[in-house]
């Protein structure tokens, strides 16, 4: 006897929008009856995964099966009898009575000439009862409160009587009481009717409370998958959300909950632990910014130094979550900053020296790179033709020449430098920036 197929089976799913990878090689299997929460920061691919399950988009790679059948093989009607969707917010323009709105959900079960039967009505009323809106059945959908409206949307989806329910951040516009209310109802229905639920949520504590299982997405990769107890960790929060948090156990429910404390800037780019690097950028005065952006975009872990506070490069580094050795504004580099900078240089797998203007206050940057030139690949970006970089009376140019003598590779512009870093780190047999990674 073969076991029944899972409600959802996602294999090697890849979706890209233009050049942006939204999902990369995602695997997911949801057995019937389970309540799974998709968690992850904004832009991690939760919505894309849900839309792929609904058959709204053509995957670039991989397959999505619902109850053993590829979603693309199902007609739109057949799909609507298997899976219902609660979007983040529904754009309701017409003030239709609530009961009529819920009856819209019966559409996939009705023929061309069918009117709403008494059975349809009874069914819709039962669902309104279940979501606690039976006394509002005659009210216009636009006249009820936001919390009630989201329950109405849930009711409309439930009226489809599907074995699978997908919710895309259904609570993001609700206050905490309505969040708990909605999710408890979904949870109860899932239990009583055996409905499989996949819900995207970004509140991890809500996820822990209601989910049988949490699947964490980060930048399109599945980075964790398991029970709330297994998945939720301080490390995960730091790694994926870039938040320093404390993990506590609720003594009554035995469920973990997280208390966020502050933003962790040193691990903020979420693929930090998954991606190659670090690549260190020596910059200043804005010359490093294109490199910082280009390398971050390529998915590298990037560090930078030694920068002056308020400088364009320092602000870019901060905005990108790049760890940097930073000195006070306009001050000469102190011994402590230089030491921090050397720590970053030591860890770097590639060092890129931007075409920054060298003055007395930052000449030390070039001097500090020199000892690494033999051990670590060093790329030096040439200035644009006719642009002078040396404001030290010769010491700056001398330092650049010394780097050349020590084996540094000179490249024409920041883009070329980024390409060269990609080449260097790819040939060193490290996982590429888009490689699959497990948390």
């Amino acid at each position, binding site marked *: 006897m073969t076991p029944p197929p899972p409600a959802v089976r996602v294999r090697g799913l890849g979706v890209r929008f233009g050049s942006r990878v939204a999902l990369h090689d995602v695997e997911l299997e949801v057995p019937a009856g389970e309540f799974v929460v998709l968690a992850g920061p904004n832009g991690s691919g939760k919505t894309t995964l849900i839309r792929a399950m*609904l058959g*709204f988009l053509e995957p670039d790679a991989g397959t999505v099966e619902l109850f053993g059948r590829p979603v693309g093989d199902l007609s*739109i*009607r057949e*799909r*609507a*009898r298997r*899976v*219902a*969707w609660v*979007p983040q917010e*529904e*754009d*309701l*323009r*017409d*003030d*239709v*009575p*609530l*009961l*009529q709105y819920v009856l*819209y*959900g019966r*559409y*996939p079960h*009705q023929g*061309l*000439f069918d009117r709403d039967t008494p059975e349809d009505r009874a069914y819709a009323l039962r669902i309104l009862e279940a979501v606690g809106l039976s006394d509002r*059945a*005659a*009210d*216009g*959908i*636009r*006249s009820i409160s936001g919390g009630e409206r989201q329950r109405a949307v849930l009711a*409309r*989806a439930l009226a*489809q009587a599907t074995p699978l329910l997908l919710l895309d951040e259904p609570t993001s516009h609700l206050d905490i009481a309505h969040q708990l209310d909605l999710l408890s109802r979904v949870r109860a229905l899932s239990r009583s009717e055996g409905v499989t639920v996949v819900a995207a949520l970004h509140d991890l504590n809500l996820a822990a409370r209601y989910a049988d299982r949490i699947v964490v997405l980060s930048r399109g990769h599945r980075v964790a998958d398991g029970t709330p107890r297994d998945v939720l960790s301080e490390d995960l929060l730091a790694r994926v959300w870039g938040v320093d948090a404390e993990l506590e156990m609720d003594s009554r429910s035995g469920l973990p909950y997280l208390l966020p404390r502050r933003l962790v800037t040193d691990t903020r780019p979420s693929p930090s632990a998954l991606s190659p690097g670090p690549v260190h950028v020596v910059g200043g005065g804005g010359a490093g910014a294109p490199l910082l952006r280009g390398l971050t975009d390529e998915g590298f872990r990037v560090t930078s130094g030694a920068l002056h506070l308020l400088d364009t490069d320092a602000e870019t580094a901060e905005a990108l979550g790049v760890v940097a050795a930073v000195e006070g504004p306009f001050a000469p580099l102190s011994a402590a900053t230089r030491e921090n900078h050397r720590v970053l240089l030591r860890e770097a797998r590639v060092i890129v020296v931007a075409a920054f203007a060298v003055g007395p206050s930052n000449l030390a940057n070039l001097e500090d790179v020199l000892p690494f030139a033999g051990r670590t690949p060093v790329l030096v970006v040439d200035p644009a033709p006719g642009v002078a970089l040396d404001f030290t009376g010769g010491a700056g140019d001398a330092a650049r020449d010394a780097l050349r003598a020590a084996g540094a590779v000179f490249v024409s512009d920041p883009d070329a430098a980024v390409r060269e870093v990609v080449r260097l780190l790819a040939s060193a047999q490290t996982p590429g920036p888009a490689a699959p990674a497990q948390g």
Partner: protein
Amino acid sequence: MTSPAKTGHRPRWWVAVLVAVGGILLIVFSALLGTVDIPVRLGLQILLHQLTGGWWFPQACAGTSLDPSRCSAYTFVVWDLYLPELLLALIVGAALGLAGASLQGVFRNPLADPFLLGISSGGTLGAAIIYVYRIGLADADLYLPAFAFIGSVATGLLILAVARGRYSSVETLLLTGVALANLLSAILSLVLLRNPAGSEQVSFWLLGGLGLASWEVDGIAFGAVLALGTLLCLHGKELNLLQLGSDVAQSSGVDSSRVRLRVILLASLVTAVAVAFTGIIGFVGLVSPHIVRRLAGSDYRIVLPASAAIGALFLLSARDVSYLAFPGSLFPLGIFTAFAGVPFFLYLLYRQRRLTPMGGA
């Protein structure tokens, strides 16, 4: 219905009865109104005589002092002039009301109507080109409507061709239609400027009128509008779901893009029928669905047929107003629908602004 409507605008039966009774009275009244004054009693007798095949009032002019030739002249006026004219007004009004309601539904925009989208202008351009360039002038009565029809359908197809583009949103479609309408008007102006002789004939299509009405025309128009209208009315449930957005509709089992294509095609065809025989008559398609939504809520299963009914009565009223205001001759109806339609439409817009900032009906 067990639960009374509180806010959700559930259709009320007495509204339907009121509209039906008013409609019948309007139709009877209209049958006696036209270029020639007909005594009320005589007119009713003639109608009943003709409608019952002589079973009722075997002598149409019984009780009057009319001689047989005068009687048959009156009969001709009522039966072969007024009645076809009023029926064409009803048929075309219904077609425009339906087209407006379905386009507003499919575009989720209360301003969509066949005129705005250029479907009507396409028809006029078709008629203008055939007339001005003297193609088949020998039988202009036949060719002009045919080309008006082709022009409208071609415009609809052009919008559809854009709609098939994978990334086209509803807004893109609507704006494409608006742009197209302007382009068509420009081409039409150019054609007419270069051929001033044609402009008088073409002005019939520009301003819209019931001048082509006859039993034959009515028969063709009725058959076409009935068939297309029935098909359109079968899309009520789909249009209801499309109001929730095409993704939600799709997740509920509606093939959104296919339904959109089908409804736009049908609405173009039904508009083309109207334009072919009466030219451009604005505001019927725009206003009728709004009246219906105020009276009966926004369930498209009701909005579609009810917009046909309201559109029919609206256009018939416009015809009557034309005769009452300027006895003896029928003015282009577009003038009267605009006079009645624009203030009413503005009133609706301002009343609804409180509910819907960007004009969602």
